[in-house]
């Protein structure tokens, strides 16, 4: 795909029905992989971000039109986000695209942590912003989503089955992760009302500037489920990047996040938070093992995927420490 092919495809996608095509200029490629890429463009001199999922990846993830509806519902509820300009399939370049407003800020975790180091006013603001954003997001139920039938639903039971399936599909055995599943099976939290869950709300998908949280990005894993899934994921050790005593993304403390979440209307469920912390630790351990397996099978040439196999033990170690003596034996 050349820049001019992308410009034409974006212009067609963004053209109003029966109206003239805008002028599109490709400014930069922010990231480019085999299955997805992100580009910065000007559309009639207004900066925008184009995220492309190429054919194979597009079939495996949420469609851009569904993602647009999800982002719209979340933003209507008060979640900071990047407004969607257009979304849809681009036949010219065989990619599913979502075109969003360009916002300035940092997303790379280590840069976020340099901008908002722990125990600074900006880190406190960012933590509170996350609490408010999560409460707003989790106020969205299935009555507020037009695309409800297209979103997966995660119950604790279905998620346990999903995790077993992931482990069963691996070429390597991980008894530590399986131990965690055995504990989860006997300690399921009380069922909660299903709410919109981002699915990947963590340091890395948060656009941060000197005012705090500017936008929540990357909604393709959104689904309906227990809100504690999002909060647990945000607080996993893996996303702290060495700032161990600041569970919220390495920049914030849990008390502040919880206080702001509850003050903004969220309902905190400690049992659910613990259950989902364990479940999501298992999921990421299995995810890293899956990446390593894809390298071994020759489906990926990524050095990062090759290295993932040596990182699974980090998640196993975290999991076994989380379980401690409280595993129902």
């Amino acid at each position, binding site marked *: 795909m050349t820049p001019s092919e992308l410009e034409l495809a974006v212009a067609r996608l963004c053209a109003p029905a029966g109206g003239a095509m805008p002028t599109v200029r490709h400014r930069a490629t922010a990231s480019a992989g085999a299955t997805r890429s992100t580009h910065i463009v000007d559309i009639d001199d207004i900066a925008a971000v184009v995220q492309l999922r190429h054919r194979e990846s597009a079939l495996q993830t949420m469609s851009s039109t569904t993602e647009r509806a999800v982002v719209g519902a979340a933003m209507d509820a008060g979640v900071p986000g990047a407004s969607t300009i257009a979304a849809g399939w681009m036949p010219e370049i065989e990619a599913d695209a979502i075109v969003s407003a360009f916002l300035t800020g940092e997303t790379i975790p280590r840069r976020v942590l340099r901008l908002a180091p722990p125990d600074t006013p900006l880190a406190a603001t960012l933590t509170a912003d996350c609490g408010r954003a999560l409460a707003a997001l989790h106020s969205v139920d299935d009555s507020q989503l037009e695309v409800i039938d297209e979103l997966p639903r995660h119950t604790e039971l279905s998620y346990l089955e999903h995790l*077993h399936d992931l*482990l*069963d599909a691996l*070429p*390597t*055995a*991980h*008894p*530590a992760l*399986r*131990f965690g*599943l*055995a*504990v989860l099976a006997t300690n399921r939290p009380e069922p909660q009302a299903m709410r919109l869950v981002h699915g990947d709300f963590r340091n890395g998908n948060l656009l941060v500037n000197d005012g705090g949280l500017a936008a929540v990005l990357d909604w393709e894993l959104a689904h309906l489920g227990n809100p504690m899934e999002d909060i647990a994921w945000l607080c996993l*050790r893996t996303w*702290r990047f060495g700032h*161990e*005593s600041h*569970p919220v993304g390495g920049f914030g403390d849990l008390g502040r996040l919880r206080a702001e979440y509850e003050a903004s209307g969220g309902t905190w469920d400690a049992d659910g938070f613990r259950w989902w912390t364990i479940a999501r630790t298992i999921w990421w351990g299995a995810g890293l093992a899956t990446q*390593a*397996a894809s*390298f*071994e099978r020759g489906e990926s*040439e990524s*050095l*990062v995927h*090759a*290295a993932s*196999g*040596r*990182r*699974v*033990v*980090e998640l*196993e*170690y*975290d999991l*076994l*420490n989380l*379980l401690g*003596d409280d*595993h*129902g*034996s």
Partner: protein
Amino acid sequence: MDRPSADQLRDAIAASRAGADDLDADEARYLERVASNLEGILEREALLLDDATAATITSFSTLVAGGPPDPPSAAEDQAASLRHTLDRRLRDGLLTPTDEVLAALRDDAARRLAIARPGYLHPAT
């Protein structure tokens, strides 16, 4: 004990470095950091892996005692086989997740982490 194998990792590191000129500076720096970390892991594996594997075989053998005996094999194969047996028994409810199992798994994880990322060896708060 963990996969891909050391040889596969060495090949992947070499391939990544050979392609570094085609990348932008940030990405090249990031991949070099990954490669350098992997080289450190491989060096520690050469020093520590045999002892770690032997300790895991001893520990896991106790947990699965009473099950069908495994055929004699190389230490790494034997450890993988024991891991597989433990995994299946936990999955099928044939092994209860007791303190003893937890302790054995935690010790195994600590030994492997001492090789993969020694700086990570303390519980998060």
